[in-house]
């Protein structure tokens, strides 16, 4: 859910766009991170741990902790807490450690 009224802050969110999360359309803004857009859409489970398959979510939100790794546009282990929303991007829950594809 988004904060519409705040006693101190005003939010200038910029352009609203759509991207894909696990095949479904999610709305976000180009000024915000993927993590923020997913949270606003009520999505808090971002993936599972590679070995014990326990659910994983956001922890630090500033690119430190690696808890929010997802696969973005086919690239695994992207820290979605510091990656901005782009129109049409694909964001997927990552299975295991992910594979790096070399061009």
């Amino acid at each position, binding site marked *: *859910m*988004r*904060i519409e009224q*705040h*006693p*101190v*802050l005003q*939010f200038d*969110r910029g352009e609203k766009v759509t991207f894909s999360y696990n095949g479904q359309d999610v709305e976000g803004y180009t000024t*915000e*991170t993927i*993590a*923020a857009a997913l*949270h*606003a859409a009520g999505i*808090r*489970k*971002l993936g599972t*741990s590679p070995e014990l398959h*326990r*659910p*994983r*979510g*956001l*922890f*630090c*939100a*500033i*690119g*430190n*902790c690696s*808890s929010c790794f997802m696969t973005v546009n086919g690239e695994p282990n992207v820290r979605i*807490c*510091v990656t*901005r929303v782009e129109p049409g991007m694909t964001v997927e829950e990552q299975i295991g450690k992910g594979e790096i594809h070399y061009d």
Partner: protein
Amino acid sequence: MIKEVEILVIGGGPAGLCAARSASKLGAHVMVCERDYVPGGQLVKQTHKFFGSEKQYAGDRGIQIGKMLIDEIAADPNIEILTEATVLGIYEDGVVTVLYQNQHLKIHPKKIIITTGAAEKFLSFPGNDLPGIYGAGAVQTLMNVAGVKPAERVVMVGAGNIGLIVSYQLMQAGVEVAGVIEAAPKIGGYLVHASKIRRAGVPIRTSYTVKEAFGTDCLEGVVICRLDEKWQMIPGTEETIPCDTLCLAVGLTPLAELCWQAGCQMAFIRELSGHVPILDENLETTVSGIYAAGDVAGIEEASAAMVEGRLAGCSAAASLGYSPQEAKIMLQAAREELNELRSGPTGSKIRAGLQKMSEKKGVKTAC
């Protein structure tokens, strides 16, 4: 190609931006590497008003201070700032490598100022990895930067200043704060912050900790438990609190990896909240030409980080021969401000930490 730079500042938070500004004022050319999209560090999410004196912008909100510093830097022709620029390593030959907007850069600075800040600490209890358990800073980022309501009902762990301030900010964002729990027998933060949330009806329970967290895919609740005077859980005092978010405000620890890697002599000093580089009175590490300022050199408030930044920036510029007279005056002023900030009962912990640091014998090495 290796880019030659006079002073490289690593981290564009309050300490780094102030370091860059003071070095530039003395005439030096500075490059700042910031790993986020925007500089400002954690100031960009701090909606509360700062304490201290006018020189440290007391009475202004963190976000306003951040904006002011960012605007000053943007207008300063001596400062180049790279955003989305993560410093990867500091090598023996003095070359610094940077991942900058997906390119690999090599920079050769004459002086380096490390202002990488801190990371939030974690707590161990069963279920602590469930989605819905965040560092207090993460919740602040979600609500104050992105404008996203991070939770419906939250339990806050830690009644230090961050726990208290973020609890209040959660209420401002329309979130229900079920309670603040604190393992210590008394509230650690300022009374003014504690009173504000108590007046709003939020209980602050001291000598309490989290026993466990539960939920299937996301957090559904926590079990809290009372602690005895030896900080051991008292059986039979467990209580279950339904909540979708648990916020950990249990302290910060310096992000000192680059100091370790550069070969700076480090010391574990509890009062400074972890391993910190040993610094001299100019905030120079034991590696000649590498300085450190702000939380990376010991956890303190942003106001102190800004003054430390100024001190390190001045020292670095002065060591390159820039405006020695003016540098002397600025250094003196910064030292006096730090002493003032650290005076009084709230500064006793940091004073004890710095005393311990001054007793460590740092041995200078060349970079």
